[in-house]
């Protein structure tokens, strides 16, 4: 019977708080960026930029990814989530840790607030990894392998981050602090974010597009190149120091990213569902930003100008990571909320469909606003023009408001049983 064959969605408390909190962090991120506009033309190792980056990667990116991950892991691995309770605890640990870290960086309170924030984030990462490991089980899908490896890289990243926080107050690391910071950033970007997004999209994009690809080996190449390149980069940088050899290892990672994008392009080419919605367009644009970041990479090695590091960070955090979240939120959250509110009523009374739970028109405005904001911000940073940066950041704040409003519309959607909505 049916109960034996289909999995149960995780309880809403294990998923929805991540989306709600992540949306608020996105608004905070855009406001902090606006307040730090002047810092965007300087060195990336500044208290305000460290606060901005950690708002982006922990409060925004990791927060949404944890929520989406707990919802999607059962779909990818075809098993129920191992422990919803651990998921809930990881939410509190991540939220508290991100808030403490962001405040500590902004005011540069090195010491216990920063160390405690880092320890809470490590706790959240360990809880997440335990859930991922047990949920994935013996699943042999390439997507599941990416998700497990990304969870391992997340643990590596946050442990190194905690050590760096301790090192700021009680110096003990023999290497240069900034060099270790680069290892921390590489592991986070190429290990955690890249591999997680690779794995999840390899399963979800074919599902959303009703597409298939016969080029499965591309995903294998992607796995080995992304992991191999990152391990080589970290090992060489740790033992021999960061050098131009790093560019070669990053090229290997780029080949892995290209293999994955080619796989998705083949799925897109062979899709049954021809109409491409705004969410998928936004996702497609995010891939362009990722490839753009790899194009900027040689400038980072060939020049001492620190603005290229900030351009690359902008392409990765605001273009790629934010782009994919802005698109995928409206491909996942309406279904999660719908499943929670209307599943039992389906077939009994007239209920709205998931796509009726949000304002589709706003997703379109959000797409254009995002594109304008991103292009202006990259132009402003490249030209070191603070006025342009400020205009771009106003566009970012508008984008964030559109996003958070639409997320609120989904979360607080109400209907009476006659079928009329709020």
């Amino acid at each position, binding site marked *: *019977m049916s109960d034996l064959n*289909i999995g149960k969605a995780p309880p809403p408390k294990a998923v929805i708080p991540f989306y709600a909190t992540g949306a608020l962090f996105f608004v905070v991120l855009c406001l902090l960026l606006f307040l730090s506009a002047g810092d965007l033309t300087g060195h990336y190792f500044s208290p305000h930029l460290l606060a901005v980056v950690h708002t982006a990667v922990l409060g925004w990116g990791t927060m949404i990814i944890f929520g989406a991950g707990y919802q999607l892991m059962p779909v990818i691995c075809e098993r129920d989530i191992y422990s919803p309770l651990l998921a809930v605890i990881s939410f509190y640990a991540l939220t508290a840790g991100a808030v403490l870290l962001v405040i500590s960086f902004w005011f540069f309170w090195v010491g216990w607030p920063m160390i405690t924030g880092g320890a809470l984030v490590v706790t959240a990462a360990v809880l997440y990894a335990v859930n991922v490991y047990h949920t994935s089980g013996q699943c042999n899908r390439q997507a599941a392998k990416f998700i497990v490896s990304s969870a391992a890289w997340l643990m590596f990243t946050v442990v190194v981050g905690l050590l760096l926080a301790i090192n700021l107050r009680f110096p003990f690391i023999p290497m240069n602090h900034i060099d270790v910071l680069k290892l921390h950033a590489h592991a986070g970007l190429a290990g955690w974010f890249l591999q997680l997004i690779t794995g999840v999209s390899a399963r979800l994009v074919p599902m959303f597009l009703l597409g298939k690809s016969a080029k499965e080996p591309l995903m294998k190449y992607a796995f080995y190149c992304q992991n191999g390149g990152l391990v080589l980069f970290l090992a060489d940088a740790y033992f021999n120091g960061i050098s131009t050899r790093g560019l070669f290892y990053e090229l290997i990672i780029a080949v892995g990213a290209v293999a994955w994008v080619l796989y998705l392009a083949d799925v897109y080419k062979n899709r049954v569902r021809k109409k491409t919605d705004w969410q998928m367009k936004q996702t497609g644009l995010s891939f362009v930003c990722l490839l753009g970041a790899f194009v900027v990479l040689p400038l980072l090695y060939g020049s001492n100008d620190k603005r290229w590091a900030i351009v690359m960070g902008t392409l990765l955090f605001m273009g790629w990571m934010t782009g994919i979240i802005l698109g995928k939120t409206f491909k996942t959250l309406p279904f999660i909320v719908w499943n929670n509110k209307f599943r039992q009523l389906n077939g009994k009374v007239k209920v709205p469909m998931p796509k009726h739970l949000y304002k589709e028109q706003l997703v379109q405005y959000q797409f254009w606003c995002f594109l304008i904001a991103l292009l202006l911000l990259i132009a402003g940073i490249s030209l070191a023009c603070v006025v342009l940066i400020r205009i771009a950041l106003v566009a970012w704040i508008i984008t964030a408001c559109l996003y958070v409003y639409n997320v609120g519309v989904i979360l607080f959607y109400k209907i009476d049983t006659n079928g009329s909505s709020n």
Partner: protein
Amino acid sequence: MEVVTDTIYNKEKLQALELLYSVMDPELFVNIMDLGLIYDLIFTPQTIEVIMTLSTPHCPMGEAIVEGVKNVLAQQFTDHVVEVNLVWEPKWNFELISSEGRRQLGI
């Protein structure tokens, strides 16, 4: 796949199949009949067994679709117990989508 009907409960089956056109796949926004998810209906004097599939195992909307099938049939056939039997063989594929389903999907 052709939905099999026999003569004894032909009228009830046709009525049930008609009702199943109102159960939508919430993601694809196409009803489950046109998606080709229903493989068979077996009527007995006490039960209705729905033999169906999903587009993918652990389909995120699987529970909702199964719930919809049970609800819509239970409302009409109050003297029958509705049972849903999910099967993965034959595996669902795009060929099972009806011409109307293809039109709605823009294929």
